[in-house]
Structures are given as C-alpha cells and as structure tokens.
C-alpha cells in the first residue's frame, strides 16, 4: 500500500485510464480491476472512488447507465469524448512525470548527466 498523499494525485488518471481500456464499468469492478492489475499494491477505497466518479461525471468526463439487478441498481460509468481525450492527456503526463522523477532519484540515469 502506498501513502494517501502519493495516491491522491493519481486517482483520476487511474480511473480514466481503466475506463478507456475496458469501456463501461461499475464501482466494484473498478476497485477489483485496480487490485488485480497492481497485485494488490493499489487499493481504491470506496470513500475515494465514489466521490471521484461523481465529480468526474459532474465535470462532463463520464456518463452513466443503470441496470437493475433485483432490488438494487447498478451504475455503469463510461467516458465521454472529453473523457477519452482526458484519459490520454493525463496518462501521457503521468508517464512523463514518472520518468522525470526516476531521473531525479537516480541522476546517473538522466540523459543530461
């Protein structure tokens, strides 16, 4: 498990990128997929995930679809065109950031050294 501070800035990127890869998903599915892909090293808590999903929806990056399963309603999230583009720009930015931090932590690896 990573620190809360470290995860905070990457949650958006993770959620948008997962939806870009898998199409529409519901909350539980997103938490499980994240766990699976990171071998349990990144765990999305419900307290972080649902408020974020609702926020992304309000910002126009996500649309929702519901499906009834007996008494309960399952809410699926999918990317809008703005969401498709945001997923790409955020994950490119993040990959670049990771590379920069690697150079910062290991100056020998930096092409400038």
């Amino acid at each position, binding site marked *: 498990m990573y620190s809360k501070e470290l995860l905070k800035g990457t949650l958006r990127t993770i959620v948008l990128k997962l939806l870009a890869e898998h199409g529409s998903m519901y909350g539980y599915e997103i938490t499980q997929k994240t766990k699976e892909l990171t071998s349990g090293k990144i765990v999305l808590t419900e307290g972080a995930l649902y408020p974020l999903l609702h926020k992304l929806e309000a910002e126009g990056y996500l649309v929702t679809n519901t499906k009834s399963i007996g008494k309960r309603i399952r809410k699926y999230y999918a990317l809008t*065109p703005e969401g498709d583009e945001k997923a790409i720009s955020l994950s490119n930015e993040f990959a670049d950031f990771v590379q920069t931090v690697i150079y910062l932590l290991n100056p020998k690896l930096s092409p400038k050294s």
Partner: protein
Amino acid sequence: MTTLNNQQTEQVLGSLEAHIGGNRKLKNEMFDHWCTYVETHMNNGASFEQAYSKLKEEFGVNELKSIEKTYLAYHQSSLWVGTLQRAGSMAAMLLFLVVAGVDAQKRPDISPVFDQYIVSSAFGEQIHPITNKEIHHNGIDLRVPLNTPVRSTADGTVKTIKNSPKGHGLHIIIAHKDGYETLYANLSNVSVDAGQTVVKGEEIARSGNSGISSGPHLHYEIRLNQKPVNPKLYISK
C-alpha cells in the same frame, strides 16, 4: 455468478441503512457494491454467512462514516465552486466557450449519414449476428438502404481504401487531427482517393453490403490513438 436472494439482499440493505445517512446517490451505489462484494466471496466458495461477516469486518462503521464524510466534504466544496463560477466574469465564460468550440470542431462529431438511421448493433459487448458468439463490437452498425451517401465526420485525409471480403468489405479509413481516425465499412462504392483531403460533411462513399455482413448497413468506427471509442457519444448532430 451467484446472485443474492431477496432475504439476503434485505439483510445487506438493513445493515447499510443502519450506518449510512440520507445521501441517496451514495447509498444506492454502496448497496450494489456491498451485494457484489458478498456475491464475489460466495462465488469463491464462502457461505452467505461467512461472506456477510467478512463484509462487516472490512467495512466497519468507521469506514462508512469516513466515506460519508469525504462525500459531504466534496459536496460542500463543489457548492462553493458553483457559486464562484456563477460569480465569474462574462469574459472568462466567453473564453471558455471559444476554447471548447475550437476543441469540439476537430472531433468527428456528426453522423456518417445524412438521414435518419437505426442502430442495428451498438458499441461494446454484443452477440455477433453471424457467429452468435459474444464479441467486443468496435463500432456501431447503422441500418441504412443500399447506396446511402456516406460522409466524412470531420476534416481529414484519406488514409486507406481497401477491400477485405472476409472482414470489413470495401472500407475507408480517414485520419483526422489529435489522433482521431474514422472507419467506414461494408461499402458498395468509394468516391475519394487515398491521400486526398476531405472536409467535414463531404460525401466519400455509398453504403453497401460487402464483406462479412448480414444485410445492408454501414459499419462506423471512431478510433482515438488506435483505440476504438463509442461513436454514439460523439455524434451530436
């Protein structure tokens, strides 16, 4: 996949309601989340009782309280943002509209046919009409009569014109700005050349029934950085 029966569902709902307050939106989603949690554990061999007690263990009262707290905090802050936005200057609003307008211009955001159409197969997980197997459908199928005019959905350059009898039939790929590409397939006739530039709305082909097809239709795809995205969400006019 196990599905909880009514009594089990009620039990989960009961314990959720005992801990969570009035936020309906959050409650509905947590309800499905909890039920799916229990079902997943039952699927892996646990009994309902075992799975249910594991749920209560993992989502203690404190965890739920903290979820609600985060949620409320977010809601209050977004109310603030709303007030600020309303108070914001007209100039900023206009600038936003101009930027958003330019951005949307580049996207393939019109229908590939001029007239009304029926979507005979949607984007995403679908049953293939010929093989009957579940597949991921990379585009949408528009049921249109043979020889319906097909138009480019954004400005771009014709990248590929090809005939694949065992696949998309006669098809065109157009490259647009910002990593977008559109594909028009199962055509009968093409009226552009490879390398040619086209403008949004320009007729490029006539629809057909070529390739693997169960009837006259237009298969339409939008790809962003080579990944298919849902065309239905892009078509605005």
